[in-house]
């Protein structure tokens, strides 16, 4: 087993990296993406972190990425190819890759894996996730203060806890500002289909929404908001160029500090497995600059929410919170524990779906 790995590594380095011979073995760091880096969303932001890593650690590392990798056997093969080629650290960036990463990790104990969203860890597979709901609470606050109709349209991909958590954090925050605020939800059943996302956005606008939020990957929702003269929140990356007047702010994934810190840990020999669910405070979650439609009082309120979350003075899921049926889900004076958030399957009061 060991000799075959060595063989694979030799073959790959001869074939691929003639420069590997001249430097003192830079650490190979690889990134595996579920989408194309041209998605301008989730995979794009991960690749931005890779580029930042190149900048930060320069000659000590050599980065590589593989994009458009389907879940399942193909993903496991790519991970094994990478590990076999002597890659020391692999960022496997989709929750659908988790079991493949665990299987590959068992076979290549010398390679360290960083699983971008997931829940299982072993000695050479660590896990990282972002508390996107914190940013959605800020967006909900801005939405309720900016909207005239009191209705926000929300384009949602699939009913998984991550998405439901975001919808609820947004709605709860909005209703703290305007208790009559409503969120209309459309499930588009895809992470990426610009046309369908635009259609969903249009139908939400036609039904009275004057603010749009989305959890899907393309900039089509922002573009539609711009074309129809209303406002929207960007997803994953700053989408101001698709909606210079429309964008209120954008929820930006900022994996850079984590990627750099973990790579340094491998270089220094101090890497250990772990599980991190990071938010504003850790710098993995940032907001794009507020757009022109965010007035000074709105900005102040948004910043108050953000700094409140950072300091711990407030929590997006602090009770009392009722669900659609009016049942109290989080009692007054309590906040939902992380384990509940990660399993969330109910919708907060104010979500019309």
């Amino acid at each position, binding site marked *: 087993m060991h000799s075959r790995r060595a063989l694979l590594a030799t073959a790959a380095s001869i074939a691929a990296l003639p420069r590997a011979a001249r430097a003192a073995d830079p650490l190979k760091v690889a990134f595996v993406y579920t989408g*194309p880096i*041209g*998605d*301008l969303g989730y995979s794009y932001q991960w690749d931005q972190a890779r580029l930042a890593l190149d900048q930060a650690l320069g000659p000590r590392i050599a980065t590589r990425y593989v994009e*458009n990798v389907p879940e399942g056997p193909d993903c496991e093969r790519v991970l094994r190819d990478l590990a076999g080629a002597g890659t020391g650290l692999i960022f496997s960036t989709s929750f659908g890759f988790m079991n493949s990463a665990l299987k590959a990790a068992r076979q290549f104990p010398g390679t360290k894996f960083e699983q971008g969203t997931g829940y299982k860890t072993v000695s050479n597979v660590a896990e990282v996730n972002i508390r996107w709901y914190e940013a959605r609470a800020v967006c909900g606050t801005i939405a309720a203060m900016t909207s005239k109709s009191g209705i926000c*349209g929300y384009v949602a991909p*699939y*009913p998984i806890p991550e998405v439901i958590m975001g919808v609820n954090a947004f709605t709860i925050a909005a209703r703290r500002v305007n208790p009559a605020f409503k969120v*209309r*939800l*459309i*499930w*588009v*059943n*895809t992470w*990426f*289909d*610009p*046309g*369908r*996302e*635009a*259609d*969903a956005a*249009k*139908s*939400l*606008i*036609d*039904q009275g929404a004057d603010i749009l939020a989305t959890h899907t990957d*393309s*900039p*089509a929702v922002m*573009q*539609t908001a711009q*074309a129809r003269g209303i406002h929207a929140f960007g997803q994953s990356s700053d989408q101001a*160029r*698709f909606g210079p007047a429309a964008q209120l702010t954008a929820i930006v994934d900022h994996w850079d500090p984590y990627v750099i810190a973990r790579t340094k840990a491998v270089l220094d020999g101090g890497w250990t497995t772990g599980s991190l669910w990071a938010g504003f405070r850790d710098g993995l979650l940032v907001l794009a600059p507020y757009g022109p439609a965010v007035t000074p009082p709105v900005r102040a309120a948004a910043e108050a929410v953000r700094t409140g979350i950072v300091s711990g003075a407030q929590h997006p899921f602090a009770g009392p919170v009722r669900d659609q049926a009016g049942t109290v889900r989080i009692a007054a004076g309590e906040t939902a524990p992380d384990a509940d958030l990660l399993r969330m399957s109910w919708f907060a009061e104010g979500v*019309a*779906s």
Partner: protein
Amino acid sequence: MMLVPLLATVMTAATPLALAALGELVTERAGVLNLGVEGTMLVGAVVGFAVMASTGSHTLGVLAGCAAGIAMSALFAALTLPLAANQVATGLALTVFGTGLSALLGQHYTGRTVAPLPRLPLPGLLHQDVLVYASLAAAPLLAAFLQRTRAGLVLRAVGENAEAAHQLGTRVLRLRLAAVLFGGAMSGLGGAYLSLAYTPLWAEGMTAGRGWIALALTVFGAWRPWRVLGGAYLFGGIEVGGLYLQGSGALHVPPQLLAAIPYLATVVVLAWVSAGGAARRLAAPAALGKPFRALG
């Protein structure tokens, strides 16, 4: 009230389907099955967008999308007509090729946006762009061409029985070439509509299966231009209508079921239409998919 914007959204959703499906209809009526529509649309989308982004001219962008579609279908024609390669396999391979080619060509155009195709208001409900009108006009024009012109008659004859048409002095391959290139041009237009009007941006794989739907629509519409156009609007209508119902909060069905309705509806309508007395009249062109060689 809500009906007017709903109709407008349906029109934009139906237009790329209608353009590509009407083009494929002509190709198939000449007896050639081109399964490369999805790949052709993608190349049309990226080339149209790239030219528009570089020149700022919508006209040039649309024409370039069209030309890219023609180039893709010319590749298909070169293999399937004189070389008589299998059409099903060649079409599928063309889609694989086009998907890769469009991604490569588009590498430097992701993250950019262009001004959407300008709209031309017409009396009544319409306030759409020129390609929407083009797709609406294409159906009657094609119907008239196929039914009332000599060239249309010859085209249908080639699709029904290429040997007989050849015996009567028709240049079968030349005619099929023209039909395939027309189909490519329309698929390219459909792709350019996506990247220049529907959502004015380029993103990899942005057709998201619309080329396959267009192929299905030609069968669904029984190779008749009006029916194909109607099918495109029905398909777009069900899809967009489902989104509206969801947004209204009036509907509580699993989203997967909702998404499956257009496909299930197509199957049901097809079974119903095929089983009726009209079955013979609605049959496929008899020579569809069969290569033709004029041998000495």
